[in-house]
């Protein structure tokens, strides 16, 4: 199983600022994903982080708001840009192999925007 380290674990940010969340996997993985979990709700996929190319975003999420990097097979970042209180959520990184292999999750980043 893959061990995923995600940081920061929580942050409180001011409206209009940006926060970058880091996700580090202890082994090379094919797939990395970023999810958002709004308060009291389920997980929603933001995007697939592609190594060496632009991320693939789901409907309702755009690169200007959620830029993602994936410079190698073990690391990815998600930036939440120009934050508003509506961005207050848990953001989770996940990683795994191809074709519905087990996906493992980081411990999440609890973001509060004032």
């Amino acid at each position, binding site marked *: 199983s893959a061990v995923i380290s995600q940081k920061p674990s929580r942050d409180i940010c001011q409206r209009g600022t940006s926060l970058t969340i880091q996700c580090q996997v202890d082994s090379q993985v094919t797939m990395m994903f970023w999810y958002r979990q709004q308060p009291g709700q389920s997980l929603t*996929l933001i995007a697939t982080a592609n190594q060496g190319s632009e991320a693939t975003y789901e409907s309702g999420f755009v690169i200007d708001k959620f830029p993602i990097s994936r410079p190698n097979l073990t690391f990815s970042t998600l930036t939440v840009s120009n934050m508003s209180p509506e961005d207050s959520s848990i953001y989770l990184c996940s990683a795994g192999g191809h*074709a519905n292999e087990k996906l493992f999750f980081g*411990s999440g980043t609890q973001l509060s925007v004032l």
Partner: protein
Amino acid sequence: AQTVTQSQPEMSVQEAETVTLSCTYDTSESDYYLFWYKQPPSRQMILVIRQEAYKQQNATENRFSVNFQKAAKSFSLKISDSQLGDAAMYFCAYGSGSRLTFGEGTQLTVNP
């Protein structure tokens, strides 16, 4: 688009008893996977059990087992001999190409 429905927002069970969490899904694909994840207050998403759609045999992991009814698109989770540590939010998920679609979750309480 695939959808996953968990019709029980909350469930409770007595310690050592058995509880079943329900999940239904909708898809037009024939090759997919189904998962149950557990999320305790720590926020960590923990994989409980995984089922391949092409397998008729129900998956089992210790005290956790599933009842997979492909024609009915139903995927329930049975927890036997419930323990206090089982208390958490449980999410059913549909997987296709490693992308997961989650249900709304069922909050499980275990009473001593």
